[in-house]
């Protein structure tokens, strides 16, 4: 049984369609990459899955449970963790407190278990030395790491990564990819929107291409990238 399924999910804002009959399954522990030109509806897809947007029609099923009408906090508790394209830490809280809030409320961890869990994640994401720093003062790489760490702190079964490698240097990107690989290896399912294709394809098992809110193609990364349709629409290469 898939961990997450979207069935004909559609969403429009007036004449602008951000999702049109989007359907796909995410297997437990699978990593799925999402690519597409700007405005293709990638971040809107995450908003629909995380509960920030309600679909006009269609169903979203998490681990057999219909969560289409569930608000974001319930989806978080049900196992969906999210990072943002533009990092949105709780700027007045310390790095450690950012994780603690996520672990206590999103992961429903006890007051005893949460601190250990958070310190473990801080070590794994390379943020242990920044634990006491106010999150608003972090560098871009550190903020991206915090986005990932905070999503992990909610103990997700599906983690949504939105352009987490964007704006990083090659070395920084490599470090972050190594952490994501580790999370994946531990069995967490991942949906990853990314423009840095070599980083994305080094982790994901399948790639999905979105265009104008529609799923253009979904399959193995090599096959998808070799598709003439993708080359024309996404990479601007004539078929």
């Amino acid at each position, binding site marked *: 049984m898939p961990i997450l399924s979207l069935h004909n999910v559609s969403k429009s804002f007036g004449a602008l369609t951000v999702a049109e009959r989007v359907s796909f399954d995410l297997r437990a522990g699978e990593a799925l990459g999402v690519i597409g030109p700007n405005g293709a509806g990638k971040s809107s897809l995450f908003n629909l899955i995380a509960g920030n947007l309600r679909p006009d029609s269609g169903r979203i099923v998490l681990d057999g449970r219909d969560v289409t009408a569930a608000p974001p906090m319930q989806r978080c508790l049900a196992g969906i963790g999210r990072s943002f394209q533009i990092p949105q830490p709780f700027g*007045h809280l310390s790095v450690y407190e950012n994780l603690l809030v996520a672990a206590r409320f999103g992961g429903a961890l006890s007051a005893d278990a949460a601190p250990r869990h958070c310190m473990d994640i801080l070590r794994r994401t390379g943020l242990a030395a920044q634990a006491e720093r106010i999150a608003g003062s972090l560098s871009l790489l550190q903020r991206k790491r915090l986005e990932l760490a*905070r999503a992990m702190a909610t103990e997700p079964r599906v983690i949504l990564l939105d352009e987490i490698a964007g704006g990083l240097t090659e070395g920084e990107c490599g470090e972050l990819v190594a952490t994501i690989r580790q999370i994946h290896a531990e069995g967490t399912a991942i949906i990853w929107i990314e423009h840095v294709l070599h980083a994305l394809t080094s982790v994901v098992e399948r790639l999905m291409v979105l265009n104008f809110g529609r799923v253009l193609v979904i399959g193995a990364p090599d096959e998808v990238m070799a598709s003439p349709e993708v080359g024309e629409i996404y990479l601007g290469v004539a078929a």
Partner: protein
Amino acid sequence: MIWLDTLLQGVLLGGLYALFAAGLSLVFGVMRLVNLAHGDLIILAAYLILGVAAVLGVTPVVALLIAAPVMFVVGWLLQMQVFNRVLGDDILPPLLVTFGLSVVIQNALLEGFTANSQKLSLGPIETQSLHLGSVTVGVIPMMTLASAVAVIFLLNQLFYRTSLGRAFRATSDDVVTAQLMGIRPRRIFAMATGIAMVVATLAAFYLGARANFDPSIGPARLLYAFEAVIIGGLGSLWGTLAGGLVIGVAQAFGAAVNPEWQILSGHIAFVIVLLLKPRGFFPRATD
């Protein structure tokens, strides 16, 4: 020596203003809600203490202990049923709703208790005082200041040492992201307003013990509370205490020069602080 005495009386009065302001500061800090009914809710709490004491035949202190949880529930329900419905990007609806609530509370109290002044009678302690060298301080005003310091201290502990406090701060920072971390903002806001009403009840107790009150004096308490919050810096609890003390001391010195200048002096101090430090004494680093 009269100036030292005036300064001390001003500081003690400032403790009461800080209590008025603490709840307002808490609610504003967590949800950016300017509760124009805050002063009237303090007066409502004062009448509740008065009513409980009269009906049950208990002392005002016992009545306070009964009224505080009742006011917590009042705050919780107000937030869940009224304020949460109007909170959003537009600041006007909450202002209109709380203004309307202010009018409703004033008129309901007028209908229920008439315009006659009331007072909470604490017995002999009201007139007891301590002689500290050449100055004399009343026991009740000292308890008021001590309570204000204790309330601010406890609220700070709540904010920075507890899971609920972190949720308050996280929701204050970014309500959308907070929801994605499993926080239920509506409940967090209701907890904040409930706690603010408990503090307002304590403020009401000292207000009623110190002076007469009637249904119409809420808006003036709101004004003092506002000035204290703004002088201290929006979102800073210790700043709110400092703001209360500034207003209290300014009023005490104004009254010492000419009793008619008491209230005006507080407002002038507020304007001077705004001119010199527009963001108050202890503004948050970033907003």
